């Protein structure tokens, strides 16, 4: 038995459907519509990809660049104590040897192969230490080609990945490297919360429970509570607004929970009918928005 067989139809059965007059007619009908501006801004954190790093390794502190093309142009490969990057026809092959290295070592390597990126060292939960976060494009990625990463396993370094990114992308691109957070220090988020349910507490489902119930469970575990209201917009986007406890009613429903710091868990709460109208999204600056 194969789960694929449960599907009513496979993509291969639909080959050529796009050329059907009905499909072409629909395309022209859509394109005859005005492309009006949407009134609700897309929520923050549009493009984020996270990858997992392994344990730190060490390497000799020597930078090696192999050049090609014009003098002064980007190298096709570069290696220093922290990372080695090799440009292929389609992507950049990135091997991180020391995730604890100074962020400038990573930036230097990316720049050597022609990628202008920012690397930040950010506080994360113990389980996330060493992870590479990103690439994050704070202003959104609207350019030719694609941007993203794919980890490669097995990996003999601390972390191996393919990185796709057009070298001429003019926008700001940020990678994060996770370091252990200090007690009580807020973690840097890797990605937007999944409003459909993310759980922070082992052996406990918070989704669908009341705020009062989940808060009681947190108290039982000796944890503090933070609050975020999850506002949904008609265009399918959402915005999570950090609010003080007095903005949240005990009977409202929790959608997700996420660790905020070593001693606090954030409740992502669906605003009740008595919550008033949804505000315009007003995201707070994230770690990747901060000046380099």
């Amino acid at each position, binding site marked *: 038995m*194969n789960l*694929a067989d449960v599907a009513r139809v496979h993509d291969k059965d639909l080959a050529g*459907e796009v050329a059907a007059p009905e499909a072409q007619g629909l395309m022209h009908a*859509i394109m005859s519509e005005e492309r009006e501006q949407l009134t609700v801004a897309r929520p923050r954190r549009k493009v984020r990809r996270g990858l997992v790093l392994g344990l730190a390794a060490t390497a000799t502190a020597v930078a090696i660049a192999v050049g090609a093309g014009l003098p002064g142009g980007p190298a096709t490969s570069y290696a220093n104590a922290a990372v080695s990057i090799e440009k292929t026809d389609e992507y950049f092959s990135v091997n991180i040897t020391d995730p604890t290295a100074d962020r400038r070592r990573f930036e230097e390597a990316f720049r050597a192969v022609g990628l202008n990126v920012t690397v930040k060292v950010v506080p994360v939960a113990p389980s996330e230490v060493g992870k590479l976060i990103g690439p994050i494009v704070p202003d959104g990625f609207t350019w030719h080609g694609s941007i993203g990463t794919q980890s490669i396993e097995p990996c003999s370094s601390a972390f191996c990945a393919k990185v796709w990114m057009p070298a001429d992308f003019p926008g700001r691109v940020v990678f994060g490297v996770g370091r252990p957070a200090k007690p009580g220090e807020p973690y840097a988020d890797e990605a937007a919360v999944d409003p459909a349910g993310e759980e922070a507490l082992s052996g406990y489902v918070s989704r669908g429970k009341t705020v009062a119930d989940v808060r009681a469970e947190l108290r039982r575990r000796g944890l503090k509570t933070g609050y975020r209201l999850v506002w949904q917009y008609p265009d399918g986007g959402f915005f999570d607004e950090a609010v003080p406890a007095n903005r949240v009613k005990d009977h409202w429903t929790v959608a997700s929970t996420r660790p905020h710091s070593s001693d606090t868990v954030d409740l992502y709460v669906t605003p009740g009918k008595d919550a008033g109208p949804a505000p315009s999204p007003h995201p707070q600056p994230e770690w990747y928005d901060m000046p380099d």
Partner: protein
Amino acid sequence: MGADPNSRFVEIYETVYEPILGYVLRRCPHPEDAADVVAETFTIAWRRIEEVPAGDEARLWLYGVARRVLANHRRGERRHEQRTAALRERLAASPALARPPEDEISQMGRVFRDLPDDDRELLSLVAWEKLDHGQISRMLGISRNAVRIRLYRARRRFARSLAKAGIDHPRAVALEGSSL
């Protein structure tokens, strides 16, 4: 982006219409309803053409949009529009789609249908859309680790439900080359 919105939209439509139609058809109880969901999905892409990522990422982006449109559709938002009438008819008459969905006729299909929505969607993305963890994480906007954990749990719940339904060897059910 380089290209003007019209030619870019045509390129996207020509490239991903079939996978998006497939995605929607596999999740719509009635094939003809897929026409409206597909139309709405591509209308959103047209309005937001500047936001649609390039390359294969466009397909993932549109899967994400289709997922939300389908959710609204299931919540009862039914809009049969004039512009989809022809496509509705084509899909209703398609012999490839004439047989009832497998989830109505096979035991495994029924068990699968009764899984929680989130589990079913994750397993479907792997088995039907053939997405890997990275692609699913980008489509859903969650971390790869979260995808891995949720998939693990979904597989486990599916295996448990199969066992409960009297399918003695749930490990015989394959999911993309590996057993549950």
